């Protein structure tokens, strides 16, 4: 559930890996993310909420970091992807999404599975084919044009 925003950073020279958790909202202290690095990798795996004010602040963060830095998003939850698709400015020319969670449906247990897929695995706007443990194909449980919209929306 949504909660306090936290950043766990790991610096590798001019690169910083920031593991984000909690809710990115108006209360999130994005100042925790320092400027000055050449490369930023943001791990959204534990982000459970991002609201419109959080998005605005995040865009402000991106402005602060500058357009010369290289920013990578990884392990983006579906909600983040959906909001990336809905909001302009989340993805910049210097921003890329390394991987993200996509919904698949496993017909056998008849339930949804969140599968972490790589952006590079998406070819021609199609979700990569996935199989369950039994080797049965999983059904991509989203509208591809909609879900992968961020790939065009830079």
């Amino acid at each position, binding site marked *: 559930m*949504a909660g306090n925003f936290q950043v766990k950073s790991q610096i590798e020279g001019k690169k910083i890996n920031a593991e984000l958790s909690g809710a990115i909202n108006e209360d999130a202290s994005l100042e925790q993310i320092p400027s000055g690095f050449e490369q930023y990798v943001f791990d959204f795996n534990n982000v*459970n909420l991002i609201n419109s004010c959080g998005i605005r602040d995040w865009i402000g963060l991106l402005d602060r970091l500058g357009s010369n830095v290289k920013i990578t998003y990884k392990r983006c939850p579906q909600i983040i992807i959906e909001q990336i698709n809905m909001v302009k400015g989340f993805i910049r020319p210097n921003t890329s999404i390394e991987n993200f969670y996509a919904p698949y449906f496993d017909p056998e247990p008849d339930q949804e599975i969140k599968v972490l897929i790589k952006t590079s695995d998406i070819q021609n706007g199609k979700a990569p084919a996935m199989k369950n443990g039994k080797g049965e194909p999983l059904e991509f449980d989203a509208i591809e044009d909609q879900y992968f919209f961020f790939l065009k929306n830079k």
Partner: protein
Amino acid sequence: MIFRNQSFLNLWWKLELMSGPRTNQPKFIFPLKGKIILLFSTIFILGIFIYVFYAVNLFKEDKTAFIYDATLAKVESINDSLSFQKNQIETILNAYLNNLDESRVAKNYGESQKQLKQAILRSKLPIYEISIISKSSSDPKGLELLELALPPSIGRDHFRHFFSQQDLEFKSSSSPKMYSDIFQFDNEKVLQLPLNIGSKIAMVRMGISGLFKTFERQQSHLIILFPSDKKEQNFMFGQREIFALNKIKESDIRASIWDFLARSNTNAASTTVTNLNLTSKELNKNFPVLMGMKFNQELNLWILALVPESHAFKATRFLINRSVYLGGILISLTVFLGVLFARGLTRPLESLARTASQLALGKFGIVAPVSGRDEISELTVTFNQMSQDIAHYIGEMKEKNRLESEMAVAQLVQSTFFPSTEKNFGIASVSGKYLSASECGGDWWGSLRFGNKIVVVICDATGHGVGAALMTATAFCAVRNLESVIKDRPHFLDHPGHIMQYLNYAALGMQGKMLMTSVVGIYNLETGLFKYSNASHCPPLLFKAKLNNDEVAKDQFIPLMEANGHRLGHKEQELYDSQEMLLEKGDAILFHSDGVVEVQNPEGKPFGQRRFIKSLIDSKMNDAKSIVDTVFNDITAFQNGQHANDDITTVVLQRNKICTIKYAFYFPDALTCDWQMLTQILASKGIQLEKTENLDSAQVIFFGLNSEEDISSESSQSLLNSYSQKVYVISSLSSDINIRKVLTKFNVSHLTGVNAPNFYDEVADQIYRGLVGPIWGIETYLGQNAKVEIREIDAVSEIIPSVNQLIEQFDLSETFSTLKDYLSTVSVELLSNAVFDAARDPSGALKYYQLEKRKDLVLQGHEKVRIAMGKNNNVVALSVTDNFGGLTKEMLLKGIERCLDNPTPKSGDGGAGMGLYFAFSMSSALILNVWDVNKTEVIALFDLQKRQKIYKERVSSLHFFREGILWPGTFR
């Protein structure tokens, strides 16, 4: 002098141009002054003329007679004079001629001759000589001459020589003519007069110039003497200057006289006066004269006296001229005096006329100066009184008009107090009619709907007229303010006695000067329960319909006698009881004022309760409007022209036997709808769908959208523009198109995605909700048995924890996992909006909008934000409610559209402006309930789907409901 006076000129002739309102003004006005002057002048002139004419004629006649007499007298006088002279001479000669003979014998002839001369001298006759001619033949000489003095101008010798010739001729003639002759010797006229004196003939030659001179002394007549033989040379004229002046010659005169004598039958013996025209040959013109003529037979002499008529009537003409001049002077004097008099007479009239003109131009109250003591001054006084009276009456009329105008305005204003005569709420109908006994009445009725409750109020203020109307205004305003009262006191809708107490409080403001009776009824559309409270009003009638039997009988009407309290405005702290009953289908409540049963016909009989019930029975009690119409028609017929003494009001609240909704549909072929399914679902809710082709009479129009062309066609545009308020859009298009091209362009309040999992339920529910209600709360979407959790939010810091808490209450394991994220995101967004963007300060400005969102805002006590979350088998529902009512449909659509155009957060300290966009995008259906300035509720519904794809493929629905007092005429 007076002609230089413009007013004088004007008084003679006024030329009035016809213009403006004085179209009846004569073109030419002849002033009174002129008339008076004209009258005076006419009378005087007429008198003068009559006098002059008569007098002059008289004078003329008199003068003519005088002249005639004078002329006649002249001629007579001349004749007499000549005759006298002749006689005198004869006498003398008779006396002395014998002496001469005797003296001849006696040889004293000389002495006798001397005596004769002396006798002649003594006679003073102008005898120049007498030739005595003897008639005896024995006397060879027979001539004696008696010479007397001659005038110096006549030479003796010449005289003697001439007359000796005459003597010789006479003597030698055997029958000498014994007629006179006249001769002209230079300037002397000589008359030769033969006289028989015994045996002798005396030729007397005497001067008659003196005679001419004597009778021509006044130079009035021209004396003419001529012997009967009319020899030209013997024609003696007297003074003829006048004739000469007029170029009348002697020859002209002579010719004219001879001509006249030849033509006329004049008796030579008579004396006459005649008119003669002398003709001037030179001038070839006539010269009229008056001629007196006499023939002296003794002397054989014509004696004429001529006088020119112009000369003769000179005096007359003189008199006429003088009369004319005098008349002119007198007329002028008359006019002058007339002007003076008229002025004095007409000045007050002119002043009055001027004042009257001013009065006619609208200067009421103007007065004219009063002068004199006559009828005109009396008229002026009366006029002044009239003018002032008119001013007074005008003032009173203005006041009356003002009062009538104000009464008309009051009547007009009061007419706005009344609702439209008939309103069908589907489940129930309310119809009413009111007829005032005067311009403004003391009855009032109103009907309002709040949620699923219908409130009916009927009032009757004491009396009628302006005072009673003011009382009804009090009732109207009080009921109208119920909207804000109910906000803080929602229990008012549970108990009509509360509303009655509230009305009583309002009526007490009249301090007991006016009282009012009233009945308040509240009908619950959902439960069918009717409650009423009575403040000494005519008890309403309950009509109980018979099941499966349309016959109406008297015993079906039950007067509701309970729950009666004091009149409104009578007693403070009055508590009003209420009674309740269930209305089945077809049952009705009949409210009326006492004027209904008390109205009289021309015979003075009242309509009465019996006729009232009969009228209701005759109406068959089928629908509220026909019931009211039947009662009023029967009352009108009963009155038969008799004016009502009291206001008449009848109101009917009836639970419809059948709740029918007329619907039409406008569907493209590619889109289908199972109307039967929809009909069944609505029927289960007590609503009957009735199809109609008439878009005007349809209460719902289903509009299908399958492609953009379905919107862009002209017919679609026209329909959406004309009937947006009753259009239910069923769309298969994307949310983007639905928002941009349907909801923001047309004032449509309902859009359902065609692929909604419970499409028909959703449509039926929204129709029912709009018709019956209630609209508030997610319970209406989840059903009574659904689990609903509610949290009150007092501070920003409570938002996320409350949302997390709520979501944990519900098992969402059977749904796609992101649903929780949707719930969380939408809840947080809606709560943030409610907390930061809803609250207003007393001026109406947003109180917390500009606050930085990080601020840990704590709401004040009266600022309520509530989140509710619930779930049934089909949906998860959440609602966020605030008590400010600031969010409108337009704001919501605008917010979403902005983000569709430019999906970037707003910068600045306020919100990011994307919350509603997220709510719409992430939910299956978004519902906005607004009670203006009072309350806002945003409900988001999330279809419970296992498959996110299916969830995402669903076209989102949007519904808007507006709450508040719904005066009849509003269909939500």
